[in-house]
């Protein structure tokens, strides 16, 4: 068993086109580091110096990880992590 990570269209160039990949870790931070070893550059698109990038939504199962501790959110085998770019913009 592993953790399934669903990848949005715009980041599939990091995963060789795959819609979903598998990884492991004890926290979201660890999981992203694990993925970055195989899908180099992915971490940079999800995380910056202050934590998860503001305009990336990451969900653990059915919950926004921002409500679960962000990068420190615990993850385990069998979980599903979904990444979606925030849909945002505006006149300014």
């Amino acid at each position: 068993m592993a953790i399934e990570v669903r990848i949005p269209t715009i980041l599939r160039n990091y995963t060789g086109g795959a819609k979903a990949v598998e990884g492991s870790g004890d926290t979201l931070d660890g999981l992203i580091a694990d993925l970055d070893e195989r899908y180099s550059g992915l971490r940079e698109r999800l995380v910056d110096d202050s934590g998860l990038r503001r305009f990336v939504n990451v969900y653990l199962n059915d919950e926004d990880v921002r409500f679960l501790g962000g990068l420190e959110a615990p993850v385990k085998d069998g979980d599903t992590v979904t990444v979606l770019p925030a849909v945002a913009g505006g006149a300014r």
Partner: protein
Amino acid sequence: MLTLPGELRAAIIAHARADHPDEACGIIAGPAGSDRPQRFIPMINAERSPTFYRFDSMEQLRVWREMDDADEEPVVIYHSHTATEAYPSRTDVAYASEPEAHYVLVSTRDPDEVEFRSFRIVDGVVTEEEVRDPVDAAPE
């Protein structure tokens, strides 16, 4: 070119007018790969702001899952500008993350006149495109 049935165009404009002076936002889903917008889905603007919009993250997850299950994709992503022209702002370009989508902009700055335009936004480059009602298109 965006081919958009008149009733879907009217639905976007009605949503934009209803939420004015805040920005309204939403999508029209269609079968993956078809480029045919079919299912109108108004979204909550989590920012509730006259100058900014952002889909509510939990609503977005629910809607994106529904589309996944139905083999759909967001063919159109729309939002309104309430005091400026219907053209993608720098913010819109910076956050555009669906290179396959038609980005529709509506301006509600004039209560009587409708500005309704569609764009592709790919790698920071904005390209305007024609919007056509399929009823007006020549039969094949």
